[in-house]
């Protein structure tokens, strides 16, 4: 009798510890189990009604538009949030502005927040083209339409609008200027963005579609600086030490271009062609000063306001009047037009 008890106890203990170990192993997109079961419950409740007409508004929807973006430490995302908020308020909505810090799990929790507040709509610059699909779907199932800005997701028919900056076109514009400024030849460095961000790959691809057509342009180093200015600086420092004859640095975004420009200056290198992407005020000023050659402006302000307008249209009429996927072009910024650029918008 004693023996069986002991055996049972140890088997139980092992089983429990095994379960504990294994359930700890969740994928990065899993929500906490409490939120998950809650979401599943509400999904089950509304899925019957939602299955045939997926866009039924939640009962007692509030007047709140929830705006979710990456961290505002990057002025691009702050501009988006400010622009969307301003337009939403102008159109008579209350707003809730949140940041997901490029973490799909956190983003999913923020979508839950919007659902719990019965938001009228969600405007989101998302944390991952594949990871975000589930979040948008659960909002849809709760009757909340999502309007995506800046970054697209790899599925249609879930969000109402995807107002996307044409990163690829912007990258090609920047690369064409880069190649021209380098006289179509020379050694260059590429600093790429955060790998988990789809746009890092999109921009690099756009750059290479142009640059790889020039056999006399030689890439001597390619490293990620994760969109960060200080990381770009330290990466460039090491790269410069290993490669003396660098004629250009092409960067996935403006903050990295600022870091690269500072490193080049500190090393005393002259006439190095530097190109970024985004259209920030910092790079605008660097272009005016001659430290950076060009950037491509993403129309962050316009895109965010378009989303608010389309959300309002959809809430009132059930339609936006536009295609789901809308591709908004970037504009090349050089010394010629830098004076017209402010907060990711060009004055006429």
């Amino acid at each position: 009798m004693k023996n069986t008890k002991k055996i049972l106890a140890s088997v139980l203990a092992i089983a429990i510890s095994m379960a504990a170990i294994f359930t700890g192993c969740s994928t990065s997109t899993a929500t906490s189990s409490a939120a998950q079961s809650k979401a599943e419950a509400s999904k089950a409740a509304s899925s019957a009604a939602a299955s045939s007409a997926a866009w039924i508004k939640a009962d007692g929807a509030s007047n709140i538009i929830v705006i979710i973006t990456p961290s505002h430490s990057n002025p691009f995302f702050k501009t988006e949030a400010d622009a969307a908020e301003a337009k939403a308020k102008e159109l008579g909505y209350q707003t809730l502005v949140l940041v997901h810090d490029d973490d799909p799990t956190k983003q999913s929790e923020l979508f839950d927040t919007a659902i719990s507040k019965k938001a009228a709509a969600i405007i989101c610059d998302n944390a991952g083209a594949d990871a975000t699909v589930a979040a948008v779907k659960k909002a849809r199932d709760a009757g909340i339409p999502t309007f995506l800005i800046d970054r697209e997701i790899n599925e249609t028919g879930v969000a109402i609008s995807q107002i996307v900056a044409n990163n690829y076109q912007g990258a090609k514009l920047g690369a064409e200027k880069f190649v021209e400024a380098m006289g179509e030849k020379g050694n260059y460095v590429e600093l790429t963005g955060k790998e988990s961000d789809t746009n890092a790959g999109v921009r690099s691809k756009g750059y290479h579609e142009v640059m790889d057509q020039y056999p006399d342009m030689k890439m001597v180093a390619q490293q990620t600086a994760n969109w960060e200015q200080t990381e770009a600086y330290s990466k460039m420092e090491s790269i410069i030490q290993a490669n003396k004859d660098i004629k250009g640095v092409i960067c996935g975004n403006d903050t990295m271009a600022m870091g690269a420009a500072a490193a080049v200056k500190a090393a005393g290198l002259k006439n190095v062609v530097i190109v970024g992407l985004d259209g920030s005020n910092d790079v605008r000023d660097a272009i005016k000063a001659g430290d950076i050659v060009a950037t491509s402006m993403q129309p962050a302000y316009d895109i965010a306001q378009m989303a608010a307008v389309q959300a309002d249209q959809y809430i009132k009429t059930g339609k936006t009047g536009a295609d789901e996927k809308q591709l908004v072009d970037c504009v090349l910024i050089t010394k010629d037009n830098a004076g017209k650029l402010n907060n990711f918008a060009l004055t006429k």
Partner: protein
Amino acid sequence: MKKRILAIVLVLALAGAALTGCVKVVPLTSSSPAGGAAEGEGDAESYINGMFQKEAVPALKKKAVDFVQLMTEAKDDLKMVGDKYGRHAEASSPYNFTVKGTATVEEVKTDLRAGYLVLKVKGYTGDAVVKLAVGPVFKGTSTRDSIEAIKFDDYKNQVTFAALSTAIHKNITENVISKVKVSQLKGKAIDFYGTFADEQAGEILITPFEITVK
């Protein structure tokens, strides 16, 4: 007895593992910085090679407006005639125009890889410099953006959408540019069909889809 216990424990452990499905699958991102497989390129080329010459070019030729007529009506601002003759995806995007004309080739500029001909278009008296792109590098996406059948909404993401333009330029290089002796064109008269985007004031860069040397 001990063996039995071990067996039970093992079964429980295995069952536990199977039930929780604890296998972490790292999703392949659709675009990895440099070195990633060409997303959608194979599909874009077969699609474009199947439809560009047979369907797109005839449709573009049909809607092409005479270059001089377009510029005369536009006076100084092509945006004024954008809705009438042009096509653009978004309100903020530049208009793309499909044009035809006759011109004399004043210069052949192929020292840079984005090569072009400088044209003196017959009947055009405006100030804009008119260029006809001859590659091997083609700038912009005006041809893709002029084709009515092609909409971004139908494509997975901007990378697959961009691949269309690359495929179109390749098709143009093979079917249009290679049929003319570019280096010998200076001073010659040509008929052309092409597209351009109203992007840069004072310069019109036309990507041709037909060139006839007279």
